[in-house]
């Protein structure tokens, strides 16, 4: 078992998940609650990584993270071929899954509840924390889990921007690729099993979240 790759994978996924949450949650709120020009454009751009070849996403990321990209030019962040680049690649690919799910969950929250909270004297922040998020958290968590699992399995874009350096950027999917190339099938089998188990567990949990959500909605219907 390549423990180093597993540890790195979890580290990359954790940071990617944090990035997705910070970017994705405000985006989901915006898309669920505001009507603005260009909303379709934003959604389409956001969903592109779902359908583009990973090499295309990786290529764009190379441009953005590269020496003439904004991160280096403005902040001096040299992320290419570090695990940080892997985290960013994973986040970009997982983000649409979070936003789609979180947006749907937020849109399901009756806007009258937020308006009622406003008339009761709550600020916008307090309404978000005490009404919107508590009511949408199941859908948000489900989306986050789904996105994290996608991030954990990221391969193509990661290979392009972070490379495949054992101990530094080699995540589990990359390690599996190496193992198969080197005909180390026992090693590959073990890692494949771990990946499959993690993905299965994640999807199982997501399903449970969604099931409890629809059950709760039935209970809440005032006309039930």
């Amino acid at each position: 078992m390549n423990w180093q790759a597993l540890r790195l994978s979890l580290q990359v996924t954790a940071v990617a998940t944090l990035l997705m949450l910070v970017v994705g949650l405000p985006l989901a709120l915006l898309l669920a609650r505001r009507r603005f020009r260009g909303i379709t454009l934003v959604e389409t751009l956001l969903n592109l990584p779902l359908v583009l070849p990973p090499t295309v996403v990786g290529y764009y990321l190379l441009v953005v993270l590269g020496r003439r990209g904004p991160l280096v030019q403005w902040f001096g962040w040299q992320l290419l071929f570090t695990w940080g680049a892997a985290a960013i690649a994973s986040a970009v690919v997982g983000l649409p899954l979070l936003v789609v799910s979180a947006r749907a969950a937020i849109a399901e929250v009756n806007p009258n509840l937020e308006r009622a909270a406003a008339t009761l004297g709550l600020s916008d922040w307090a309404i978000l924390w005490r009404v919107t998020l508590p009511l949408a958290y199941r859908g948000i968590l489900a989306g986050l889990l789904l996105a994290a699992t996608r991030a954990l399995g990221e391969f193509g874009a990661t290979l392009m921007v972070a490379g495949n350096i054992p101990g530094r950027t080699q995540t589990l999917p990359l390690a599996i690729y190496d193992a198969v190339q080197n005909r180390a099938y026992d090693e590959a089998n073990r890692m494949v099993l771990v990946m499959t188990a993690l993905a299965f567990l994640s999807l199982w949990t997501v399903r449970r979240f969604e099931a409890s959500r629809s059950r709760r909605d039935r209970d809440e219907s005032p006309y039930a």
Partner: protein
Amino acid sequence: MPEPRLLADFVVERSGFRLQVSLHMGTEILVLFGPSGSGKTTTLNALAGLVAPVRGHIVLDGETFFARGEDGRTLWVPPRQRRIGYVFQDYALFPHLTAADNIGFALRGPEKAPRVRELLERMHLSHLADRYPHQLSGGQQQRVAIARALAMRPRLLLLDEPFAALDVAIRQHLQHDLLSLHHELNLPIIYVTHRLEDAFAVGQRLAVMHEGRLEQVGPITEVFHHPANAHVAAIIGIPNLFQARVIQAQADGLWLDWAGLTLLAPPQALPHGVEVTAYIRPEDVKILYPDRPIVEAVRDNQVPARIVELRAQPGGHLVRARLPNGHEVEIRYGPHTYTTLPLQIGGDVRLVLRREALVVLGT
């Protein structure tokens, strides 16, 4: 009129709809009455600050919430600073919180617990404090919603169709509750409804809305008997409206005398001999088949009548019939009803003025 507490004069414009409202009210219950789509809810939203008017002003107890003149300079107080209690039509209770937590939602500090307890008691909800909204009946949810709106000691209470989804007995109970609350708290209340019965049950003054305009504001009976224009007359005008005298109020029903015709209405506590206004919707006047047994639902209030008018209408038929007391009633029914009855002008029929549908509006 009592001393004015709310002065509102504003215009709201949103996607093709224009709402113009000009009203002032004191410590009273004002009923905002009109068909759906006439702008009643938008008026409440503008007062609460959930919708922004394009110009005008809103002043409550001397404090300006909104002001915008021709020069475009705008004063705007957000909803959370207005202290206006708002009971939404769907109640908008927080589904993830118990009744007690809903009521205490806006409160904090040492004042919170006793205040919540007091409101639970006042609204007869103490035994339901730990229930979640989905575990409460419609009437109970309604009382939680009112308690929650009262928790922050509002200066104005807005109620949007508060009793629409409730059955008659609960509605009457809550209406009574609302009147005593109003009395206790000295609180101006705006009550939106499209049901005339509700307006009569709780209202002191009536404001009639039509297509985004306030057509008439005044004491209920005055608006009712002297509608300012054809719109108001059409909105509040109901066929089969009549004056009757109470003969006897019993537990099983209210006996009325309508110019010599004795009718039974649902029970209501009214003194003997008092004059009341009552009506029955044309859909609730039934024609009896002479050859069929009479079912329980149409046993009371049978009246012989003679048909004076017979007309096909979109969606059915309209019949006018003269009763033995000289008055006429309107009857409306669907296109496939009474097809086997030989109805014709001048023909004699037996009608039933459905007891349950006979609405007594009060004096």
